[in-house]
């Protein structure tokens, strides 16, 4: 039934194109505005396909080669399994790379590595992360994160009113960025922000003294993510305090929730982490821990489908 087959070919290809157009609408618009066409790579596609049996001459002149190719679903499945393993391997490699990076002295990565890992982590986490956001960059993206205490969320707050990790205690003063309340109310968001906060060394930024009037509101409750590659855990939290002091020999601080749930001081981690900004202008990324291991598995499974 040759005509059926040509119908199927056309239908499957058209469906795939339609799905593509729906999925990549933003790219299509952007390409049009930049005078770029998909056909710009047409010759690349033809070059790649030249080695396949779809190149008529190859198909017609090499029937023996084609017949020698096994045609079983089992083999197809094995290929997919292999692709899943490759995907898992790739993510393991990224984690290994991150583990070695956090062992480096506090500071920043080489630019090339930084750009690469920003991209890879953004893909793994499924949201944009970056060392530098809107021209702002901390003095360190690699460093050691110390444990902080709870912070007062509103005037009259007390340790007893915090629902977890009370053994961490509460700082004697409010955080450097003020109360956590919104319009005087202790909202769910305010509670979450105190649970998941970072202390960062804004006070040591070169331009802090001259520009703190603009820098302070920019950093206040700015969303960041700590990456703990040794335990394959990340935690999204907000900038809620300034510190630690340089003499402490740590570059970042984390709330009791961040430290415990991010396993920041596990025997494997020993505080060594990566801290990046989260590019979340619409405030859609929830605060809290994320298992990088689970994400890796999900991606591996996706690769096998």
């Amino acid at each position, binding site marked *: 039934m040759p005509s059926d087959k040509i119908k199927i070919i056309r239908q499957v290809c058209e469906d795939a194109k339609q799905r593509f157009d729906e999925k990549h609408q933003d790219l299509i618009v952007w390409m049009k505005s930049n005078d770029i066409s998909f056909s710009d790579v047409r010759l*690349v596609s033809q070059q790649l396909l030249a080695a396949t049996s779809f190149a008529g001459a190859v198909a017609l002149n090499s029937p023996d080669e084609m017949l020698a190719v096994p045609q079983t679903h089992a083999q197809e499945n094995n290929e997919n399994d292999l692709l899943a393993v490759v995907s898992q391997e790739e993510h393991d490699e990224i984690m290994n790379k991150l583990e070695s990076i956090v062992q480096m002295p506090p500071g920043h990565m080489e630019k090339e590595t930084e750009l690469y890992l920003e991209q890879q982590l953004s893909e793994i986490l499924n949201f944009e992360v970056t060392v530098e956001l809107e021209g702002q960059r901390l003095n360190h993206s690699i460093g050691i994160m110390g444990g902080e205490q709870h912070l007062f969320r509103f005037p009259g707050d007390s340790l007893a009113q915090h629902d977890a990790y009370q053994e961490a205690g509460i700082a004697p003063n409010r955080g450097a960025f003020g109360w956590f309340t919104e319009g005087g109310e202790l909202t769910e968001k305010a509670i979450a922000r105190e649970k998941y906060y970072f202390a960062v060394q804004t006070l040591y930024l070169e331009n802090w003294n001259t520009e703190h009037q603009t820098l302070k509101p920019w950093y206040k409750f700015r969303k960041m993510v700590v990456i703990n590659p040794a335990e394959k855990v990340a935690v999204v939290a907000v900038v809620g305090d300034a510190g630690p002091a340089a003499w402490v020999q740590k570059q970042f601080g984390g709330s009791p929730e961040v430290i415990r749930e991010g396993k920041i001081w596990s025997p494997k981690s020993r505080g060594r982490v990566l801290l990046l900004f989260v590019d979340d202008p619409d405030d859609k990324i929830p605060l809290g821990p994320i298992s990088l291991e689970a994400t890796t598995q999900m991606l591996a499974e996706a690769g096998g489908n």
Partner: protein
Amino acid sequence: MNQEKTQPSIVSKENIKPFIAEFENKEIFFDIAEIVDNNEYYLGVLREMVGEYLDKIIVVNLKTAFGKNRKGFAAFMHELAAISDGTEKVQMINEKFKGKSLFWTAVELDLHEELLDELLEDLEKASR
């Protein structure tokens, strides 16, 4: 953040060898060709339609490889468009990403997942 996002060689060696005008797992092409009885007309249609889709997948993967560097991506696409020879175009992509990425593997994986696997499955069903 205008710098290009290059991809250092942190993936396994097996995955980074550059493409030489062919896919790693090309059996599926032969399987599909066999189902359509190696009919030259069908192969021509297949080549045209798969080629068109491959164009799209290559562009998407180039976009991914350039990350946030949209200016770099646009400049590269214009450079690519200016070349009139297919081999040179492939070489240009290879030079950009050679030994540094899963670029071609990603392209192939997308082609399988988004088109070829379904194509083979539907054609097999029709042949039973």
